[in-house]
Structure formats: structure tokens, C-alpha cells
């Protein structure tokens, strides 16, 4: 297996995530925290992010139904999610969180509902792309490993 080719593919995939605006500079900050002591740090943080964001989105959906027009409550949930998105560099998701909060500020229920649907789409897209990226990284092996001969 050509590991250097796999690493190139992974690098290209990552570049695509930045070019499409799915990730921002904060993701690089998280990557910089990965080292020999924590070799899977980025993947672990991303896994926690998706677990927590699924829960937050679910809580928000329930709140939209159970507490109609409770914009303060809706905003509080979204603030939490926005914070997590900022922490890992999930840029497009963060933008949808901000738009949702704007709509809360304007008392615009339809606007909030629309933003939530977009947010869920962005969440799904980012999750799928990052899962593919990490799968490729795992196949490629550690960056410092010697290139193995093509089979």
C-alpha cells in the first residue's frame, strides 16, 4: 500500500475542508496540541464534539417544541453549541449558530427553525467528511513512519 499517497490524499481532503469553509484556523490550533503523548487527540476531541453536539441539537429540538417562543431558552442552548463549534473550528456550523441566535434576538420563529435545519445539515456534512478524513489518516499511518513499498 502506498502510504505516502494516502497521506497526500488526507492532506488534500483536509485542505478541502478549509477551502469549503467547513473548518477554520482553530482546527489547526487543536491539531497543534496533538503530540506523542496524545497521538489521537484531534480525533478524540472531534468525537466528543459530535457526541455533545448531537445531544445539544436534540435538546434544542425538544425545547422548540416544548417551550414555544422561549427565545431566551433557545438562545442559551445555541450559545453552548456555538461555543463548542468555535473550540474545534467548525466554522460553517458556528455561523448557523450565530444566525439562529440573531433570529432569537428578533423573535423570528420561522428564522430559527430554518437555521436549525441548516445547522443539522452542516453538522451531518462535517461529521461525514471528518469521519472519512480520520479513516484515511488511520490507513495512512503515523506521519513519521517510513514509506512502505507499493504492494
Amino acid at each position: 500500500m502506498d502510504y505516502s499517497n494516502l497521506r497526500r490524499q488526507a492532506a488534500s481532503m483536509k485542505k478541502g475542508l478549509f477551502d469549503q469553509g467547513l473548518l477554520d484556523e482553530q482546527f489547526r490550533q487543536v491539531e497543534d496540541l496533538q503530540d506523542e503523548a496524545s497521538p489521537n487527540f484531534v480525533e478524540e476531541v472531534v468525537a466528543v464534539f459530535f457526541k455533545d453536539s448531537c445531544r445539544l441539537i436534540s435538546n434544542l429540538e425538544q425545547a422548540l417544541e416544548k417551550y414555544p417562543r422561549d427565545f431566551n431558552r433557545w438562545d442559551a442552548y445555541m450559545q453552548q453549541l456555538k461555543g463548542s463549534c468555535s473550540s474545534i473550528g467548525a466554522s460553517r456550523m458556528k455561523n448557523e449558530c450565530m444566525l439562529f441566535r440573531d433570529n432569537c434576538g428578533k423573535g423570528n420563529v420561522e428564522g430559527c427553525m430554518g437555521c436549525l435545519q441548516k445547522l443539522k445539515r452542516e453538522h451531518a456534512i462535517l461529521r461525514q467528511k471528518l469521519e472519512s478524513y480520520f479513516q484515511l489518516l488511520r490507513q495512512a499511518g503515523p506521519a513519521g513512519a517510513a514509506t512502505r513499498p507499493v504492494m
Partner: protein
Amino acid sequence: MASPVKVLLVEDTRVDALVLLAMLRRFHCEIIIANNGKEAVDLFLEGKKFDFVLCDNEMPIMTGPEAVEKIRAMGETDVKIIGISSNNNVREVFMTAGVDVFIPKPLKIDVLGAMIQEVINKKNNAMF
């Protein structure tokens, strides 16, 4: 040589806690985590001492600013307390509560490093 910087990280969001922990470990800090403001206050009530507190805003049971106010009211005026939040609108609330500085999230490692170095310098000066 000064002892490691003792840090209290007050943060309920797991992602944020993981990232901040990893940053603090880069600076070889001794770290204790509190999941909300009340846990932070309880640690001080138990007599725990810290050089540095990183405190989030919105948390269950007790918010960051509420905790900071109580910590300062205990006479803990020496400990450096940094308020952190992705919501810039809470800067004033934190400052009124008694933080030394408010930093918006996400925190950059070089900014954190500079703050920790300040604390180390202060500890070293105190030794002489």
C-alpha cells in the same frame, strides 16, 4: 526553582475542557478541573490554593461570575483569575465580578502561555 503553576480550570463543556487541558499540559501546569462555579468555590473553601484560575461563564448550578465574586469575597485576591467565554457580551459581568482579565474563546495557546509566564515570573520574584 519555583513549583509548577497550579491551575483551576472551571469548565463544564467537555470539548472546551479537553482543549484547554491539552494547552495547560504543554506548560507543565498542575491542573484541577471543576465542572461548575460551585465546585470551584468549594475547592477554595476546602483551603485549596491556586496560582491561576480559568473560569467559563455559563455553567450549571453556579455561573463563572458568581463563583468569581464569591472567591474574591473570601479574600482570595492574589490568585490570577481569567474569565473566558465565546460570548463577548459577558466581559463586563466578569470584570465586575473581579476577574483580572476576560479573554474571548477560543483561547489561543500563545495568549495562555503569556499569562502563565506572568504567573511564573511573579512566583520567582516572590522567592527572592
